[in-house]
């Protein structure tokens, strides 16, 4: 009861506490949002680069274009930076390899195998086996086209927006534990140009 009375009689100091709490909260939220936010873009310009951070790595993925004409492909380039002490598995190992994947119902498809850099050999001591991994920054490149087998792809009379939803899938380990596999969403809105001039 006495604490409540004090709070009422000294409103200004309580307000100061409130303001401080608000400032701290805004600062915390701002920092957290800032860590996840994509780079600034000019107004009305679709973002070409999306950035994400997980406990194990950061990925910055860029589309070569967000406006696509008929029959044109776009290049998705993912710059991946494993955190210190972390490795992810490369194709050719018996474990879950890092991969760029399109959503199962995506109107897009990859036009060629994803390009991977040369991995390094890592000795997994508990089983005394050598596995192919990436433990330093690396780049994956995927060529993406509209999938003509999808019902969406019909002749367009005017530009249309379409979601290009992909993910970076990986399993990360360090020298003590393996983390559960992760799927990091990479999402864009692209503009499809008409198949014929309007």
């Amino acid at each position: 009861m006495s604490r409540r009375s004090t709070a009422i009689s000294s409103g200004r100091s309580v307000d100061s506490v409130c303001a401080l709490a608000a400032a701290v909260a805004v600062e915390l939220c701002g920092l957290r949002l800032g860590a996840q936010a994509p780079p600034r873009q000019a107004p009305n310009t679709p973002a070409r680069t999306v950035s994400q951070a997980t406990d194990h790595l950061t990925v910055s993925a860029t589309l070569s274009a967000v406006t696509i004409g008929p029959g044109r492909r776009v290049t998705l380039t993912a710059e991946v930076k494993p955190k210190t002490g972390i490795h992810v598995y490369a194709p050719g190992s018996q474990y879950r390899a890092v991969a760029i994947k399109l959503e199962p119902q995506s109107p897009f498809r990859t036009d060629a195998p994803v390009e991977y850099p040369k991995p390094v050999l890592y000795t997994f001591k508990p089983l005394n086996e050598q596995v192919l991994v990436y433990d330093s920054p690396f780049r994956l490149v995927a060529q993406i086209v509209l999938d003509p087998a999808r019902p969406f792809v019909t002749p367009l009379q005017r530009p249309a927006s379409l979601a290009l939803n992909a993910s970076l899938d990986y399993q990360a380990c360090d020298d003590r534990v393996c983390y559960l596999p992760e799927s990091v969403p990479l999402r864009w809105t692209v503009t499809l140009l008409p198949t014929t001039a309007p």
Partner: protein
Amino acid sequence: MRLTKGGLKGGLKPALYILLVALVAAATPQPVTAAESFKPFKNLKALDGSRQSLAGVLGTKATLVVFFFPTCPYCNAAFPEVQKIYDRYKDQGLSMVWINVLPDEEKLIAPWREQHGYTVPVLLGSRSVANDYKLRTTPTHFLLDSAGGVISSHAGYSAGDEQALDRDIQRALGR
């Protein structure tokens, strides 16, 4: 609601008090006690198609629940030793179950078990298992008493961890 010389006024104050309390609470570590209960699972599918609940797999003295998936490197390092522990104590009141946490690897389990000669019963977890048990790594195990209370838990595997696990199990079995 407006900002005045005196500070923030109006309906924002209660919200800020709540926010402040929430921030303090979030920053305070929650103690983990050995007696905490293990969230009982229900209706998990076994490899033979039957359905199992925690109550149905509890041992008379202790139960080891291990979360895994077949291509988990450290699970593959640990499980030969864990299987030996199961063989050693299964007739002395220890029950054991391995719960797969990646549904997309379910098809790998039967051949993987056969290849390694594992006989520990396996249950098939749903996509929510990782969240339900706040799993970040595999293998993660929980050693439970006969009532389902947590005696100990451990995440990851390093050579020699099986010795600590063996000691915990011996204590749980009253040896």
